């Protein structure tokens, strides 16, 4: 890289000569119109909209160049406002728009359209084209994305995103000249898990959000908040938008360390549970019709009497152990809610509310991450890698945005060839050519085939224990002294595969290891960490970054907070040791066998559940308190990276709905407990967290505190042009209602407030003068593609230890997997649409989910006489015996002796996996 001196619009600048002029101009705050260039996908030169005049040395004539394809050279003078360049750009947009229907009033893009912005910017105001426009028929692209091809301006961004970056196959550009059609071959749901990004990538209204269209609102009428996606452990940053008390859409919120410019379709389209019929909006207690405050008083009294014994017992030796309350936390509740519960019931009476197997795995994952020295990688760390190895995770379904991040890395990963050929990173066509010829640097070992396999150098498939053995064999190959007993007895094929994987790993300088808990295998988790330790990495860790995928938005935060096992709560209750149970945001029937949960709920005294959706658990509770949903509550969530992120609501919850921790505080007050009564704002809870748990204190820094002010103002959630404020509640009261108060954040539910760029964690909307579309994001970053001004949001709670601790115990290889003659090993299969609880309450997402099935290898299917699609009765030997009859799906890549069962599907019993499974011959022949 070199810094060169150029002038732009006559102003001297020192610029990086590896970047292109468009990027440079935008980074410096100049407005240059563009269409086909995209900050995450680089330049292709398709639209010619970014033309500027370039003067070399003492040249007075100058030449028109495409700024997105031009590198600066010392002495260049760039004139954006040169009259010839202006005329050129106006002509380009006029041509691009010859067939555009000019239907902004009925277009969902209107008001946030890049084409509108660019048209105004170039000054193309009068239409002169008086001929027939080309018109197209559109396709039904499924429940997520709309299609209106007549609006297309042929920038090719959709194709580049969907096919080149997201790896989709069911999308293409058809035809030529002025009749190019972008879409599918025929009607049908877009197959890619990332199709929703077309909504933001397409600069016009060809692809828009179909779920949003069902309750459409102009951008300027949306009240928005900086939220964190609640649908998996990745913790992508989102902007949720609401109107009339209803959540209406979700957009990407840039975070260069987490999700960059994109989201997965679960994250974007699964928000409907906030509005849906499953919402708990009032306290539910039998038929008694108590008001919220009466109920809290009553429950508080219950709690007080249950806790009474403990209070008098302080100092004295308790005579008889009297039943006491227990609290059950949740990986989908915020750190604050879980902490509040833990304070109320006491450390020894707080249970994490995870399935038993998952508890073990996540506990180990946290221990491994804390012990290091492998740090967890941010998105930027992954993008800088020269090799990625994925172990036992089907990323497309367990942490979808990691799949997309790996794909983008695979396309753009820096390599020597590119340096040698002098091809710039942003030269998309050039990079594409170079990468096509390069061998892949992605290596995968998993139970069965996944969508990422097609871009992998090689994939190894095996039972979970064999994956662990395979991984340990890699460790042994890299460092013969690392293991006392390297796995023996790999067959010749596997040994050759190990050799090829090991050769690639040995050559890597910046490898990244991605593993996780989804396969349910503890040995694999341990082996993955051992592999990361055996690989090189940047100081101070000196080991390769290790990403461990965990399932839910706050699984990691919950485990960092710490607590007892759910099964232990069950044991206490059944032993008669529990009086009053508080469950927050957790459906226990998803965590343990139904019989156990039911026995627990019968024996647990008064069961009080705080949740925002009705579940099997709320149905069995004595009382349900209505919690604010994820879009209505402020809270901190810790992603699988160990990044604490604040989610700030888009809308205020309707009374009496309130955040879980506030219900807990109210219960504490009613029960006259010594803790919890003084929590008036979220910051009070966070202060207490910092006092009690200094290791988690940085969580408070995830966003500015509630009393932060910006020129004495709060940050408004509503745009300046938000309409109807004085009229929208006129059916209730003709007086202008005061906006709801937000005591937990420095943001307001109003139009008034600080209008400059807020701190990164408080950005609720991308908009800037002349830039009304999502492309306004450029104005919020330090430089294009770079961090948001002031740094990307989030605080990492787990960093590699400064001084290396004692080396962790060396894992020993499990014995090789040998399928029993009459049993199969059932492993969990994950589905982006199906396996997550809340997202399945959104009809568009639920419609894409599979029905329960049983996956078998072709060999096993033949052996057990199963036909594709025909039901097969099975007996699952988990924590309890379970009879199931499931249609068979033959999966060619599944190893012999391994069966796959989709987990988390609604109306499916809790599946305790991995577990042994047998084909139930008896019921079969009845």
């Amino acid at each position, binding site marked *: 890289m070199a810094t060169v001196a150029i002038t732009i619009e006559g102003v001297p600048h020192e610029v990086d000569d590896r970047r292109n002029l468009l990027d440079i101009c935008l980074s410096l705050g100049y407005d240059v119109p563009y269409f086909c260039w995209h900050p995450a996908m680089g330049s292709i030169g398709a639209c010619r909209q970014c033309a500027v005049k370039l003067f070399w040395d003492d040249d007075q004539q100058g030449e028109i160049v495409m700024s997105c394809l031009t590198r600066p050279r010392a002495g260049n003078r760039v004139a954006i406002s040169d009259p010839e360049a202006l005329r050129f750009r106006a002509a380009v947009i006029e041509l691009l728009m010859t067939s555009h229907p000019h239907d902004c009033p009925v277009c969902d893009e209107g008001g946030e359209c890049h084409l509108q912005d660019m048209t105004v910017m170039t000054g193309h105001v009068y239409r002169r084209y008086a001929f027939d426009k080309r018109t197209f028929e559109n396709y039904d692209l499924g429940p997520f994305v709309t299609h209106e091809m007549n609006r297309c301006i042929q920038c090719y961004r959709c194709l580049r995103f969907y096919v080149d970056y997201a790896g989709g*196959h*069911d*999308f*293409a550009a*058809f035809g*030529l000249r002025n009749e190019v*059609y972008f879409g599918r*071959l025929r009607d049908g749901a877009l197959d890619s898990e990332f199709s929703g990004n077309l909504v933001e990538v397409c600069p016009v209204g060809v692809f828009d959000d179909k779920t949003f269209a069902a309750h459409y609102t102009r951008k300027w009428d949306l009240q928005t908040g900086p939220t964190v996606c609640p649908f998996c452990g990745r913790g992508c940053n989102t902007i949720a938008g609401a109107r009339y008390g209803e959540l209406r859409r979700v957009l990407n919120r840039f975070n260069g360390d987490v999700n960059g410019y994109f989201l997965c379709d679960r994250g974007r389209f699964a928000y409907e549970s906030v509005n849906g019929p499953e919402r708990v909006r009032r306290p539910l207690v039998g038929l008694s019709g108590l008001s919220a405050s009466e109920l809290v008083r009553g429950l508080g009294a219950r709690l007080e009497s249950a806790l009474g014994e403990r209070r008098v017992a302080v100092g004295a030796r308790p005579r008889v152990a009297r039943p006491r309350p227990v609290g059950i936390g949740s990986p989908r509740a915020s750190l604050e809610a879980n902490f509040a519960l833990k304070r109320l019931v006491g450390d020894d009476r707080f249970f994490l509310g995870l399935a038993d197997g998952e508890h073990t795995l996540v506990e180990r994952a946290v221990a491994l991450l804390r012990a290091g020295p492998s740090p967890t990688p941010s998105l930027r760390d992954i993008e800088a890698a020269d090799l990625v190895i994925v172990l036992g995770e089907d990323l497309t379904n367990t942490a979808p945005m990691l799949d997309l991040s790996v794909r983008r890395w695979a396309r753009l990963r820096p390599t020597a060839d590119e340096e040698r050929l002098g091809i710039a990173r942003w030269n998309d066509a050039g990079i594409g050519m170079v990468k096509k010829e390069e061998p892949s640097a992605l290596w995968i070992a998993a139970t069965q085939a996944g969508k990422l396999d097609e871009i992998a150098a090689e994939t190894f498939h095996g039972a979970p224990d064999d994956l662990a053995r395979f991984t340990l064999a890699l460790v042994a190959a890299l460092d013969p002294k690392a293991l006392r007993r390297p796995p023996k007895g790999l067959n010749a094929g596997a040994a050759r595969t190990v050799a090829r994987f090991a050769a690639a790993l040995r050559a890597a300088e910046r490898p990244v290891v991605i593993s996780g808990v989804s396969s349910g295998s503890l040995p694999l988790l341990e082996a993955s960490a051992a592999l990361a330790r055996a690989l090189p990495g940047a100081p101070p860790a000196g080991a390769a970054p290790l990403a461990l995928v965990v399932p839910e938005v706050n699984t990691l935060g919950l485990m960092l907070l710490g607590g007892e096992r759910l099964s232990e709560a069950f044991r206490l209750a059944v032993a008669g040791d529990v009086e009053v149970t508080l469950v927050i945001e957790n459906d226990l029937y998803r965590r343990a066998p139904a019989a156990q949960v039911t026995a627990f709920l019968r024996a647990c005294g008064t069961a009080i559940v705080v949740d925002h959706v009705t579940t099997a658990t709320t149905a069995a509770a004595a009382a349900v308190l209505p919690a604010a949903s994820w879009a209505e509550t402020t809270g901190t969530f810790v992603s699988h990276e160990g990044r604490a992120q604040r989610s700030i609501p888009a809308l205020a919850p309707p009374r009496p709905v309130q955040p879980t921790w506030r219900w807990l505080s109210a219960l504490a007050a009613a029960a006259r407990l010594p803790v919890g009564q003084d929590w008036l704002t979220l910051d009070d809870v966070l202060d207490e967290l910092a006092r009690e748990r200094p290791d988690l204190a940085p969580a408070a820094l995830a966003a500015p505190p509630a009393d932060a002010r910006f020129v004495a103002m709060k940050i408004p959630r509503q745009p300046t042009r938000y309409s109807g404020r004085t009229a929208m509640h006129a059916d209730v009261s003709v007086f202008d209602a005061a906006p709801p108060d937000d005591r937990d954040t420095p943001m307001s539910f109003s139009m008034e407030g600080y209008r400059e760029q807020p701190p990164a964690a408080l950005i609720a909307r991308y908009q800037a003068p002349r830039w009304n579309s999502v492309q306004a994001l450029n104005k919020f970053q330090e430089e294009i593609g770079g961090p948001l001004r002031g740094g990307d949001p989030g605080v990492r709670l787990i960093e590699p230890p400064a001084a290396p601790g004692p080396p962790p115990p060396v894992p020993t290889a499990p014995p090789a997997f040998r399928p029993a003659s009459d049993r199969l090993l059932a492993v969990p299969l994950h589905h982006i649409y199906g396996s997550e609880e809340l997202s399945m309450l959104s009809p568009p997402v639920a419609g894409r989910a599979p029905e329960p099935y049983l996956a078998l290898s072709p060999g096993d299917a033949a052996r057990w006489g199963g036909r594709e699609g025909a039901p097969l009765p099975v007996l699952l030997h988990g924590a309890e015996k379970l009879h199931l009859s499931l249609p068979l799906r033959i999966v060619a890549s599944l190893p012999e002796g391994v069966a796959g069962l989709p987990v988390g599907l609604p109306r499916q019993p809790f599946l305790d996996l991995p577990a042994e499974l047998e084909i139930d011959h008896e019921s079969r022949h009845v």
Partner: protein
Amino acid sequence: MLTDSERTEIEATLAHYPHRRSAASGAMRIVQRHRGFLSDEALADIGAFLGVSVEELDSRATFANMLFRHPVGRHVILICDSDCCYVMAYEQMRDHISARLGIGLGQTTPDGRFTFLPIVCLAQCDHAPAMQVDDDFHGDLTPERIDEILARYE
């Protein structure tokens, strides 16, 4: 399913390309030669054989002038409408062919003998106006010559 001869011919071209998918356009020409045009089914057959999505094949097929996604006549006339031919009375030649055959551009005669299509350049500029019928070039066209040429194609 591809026929044996289609498959053999495509396989023979594979060696020329670094990737299987690079053989796609050639494979489509081969199958078109056998079947007259590329039906949806033909694309699916080729896609399955080469491991290329039908979307990708159709994207190429709809781009290329010489790949036909609709049934065509026994003979295909491609008349050049590019600059040189345009200057050298392309319009007159076009109208003459239309009048003789009773069809416009993009149409096929009812007896299935000719399909009449425009093309941008045949690289016959030195013999403008020019056209191509099936695999033969015909330059220096005049109405009389056209009549004589068309008579040769039954």
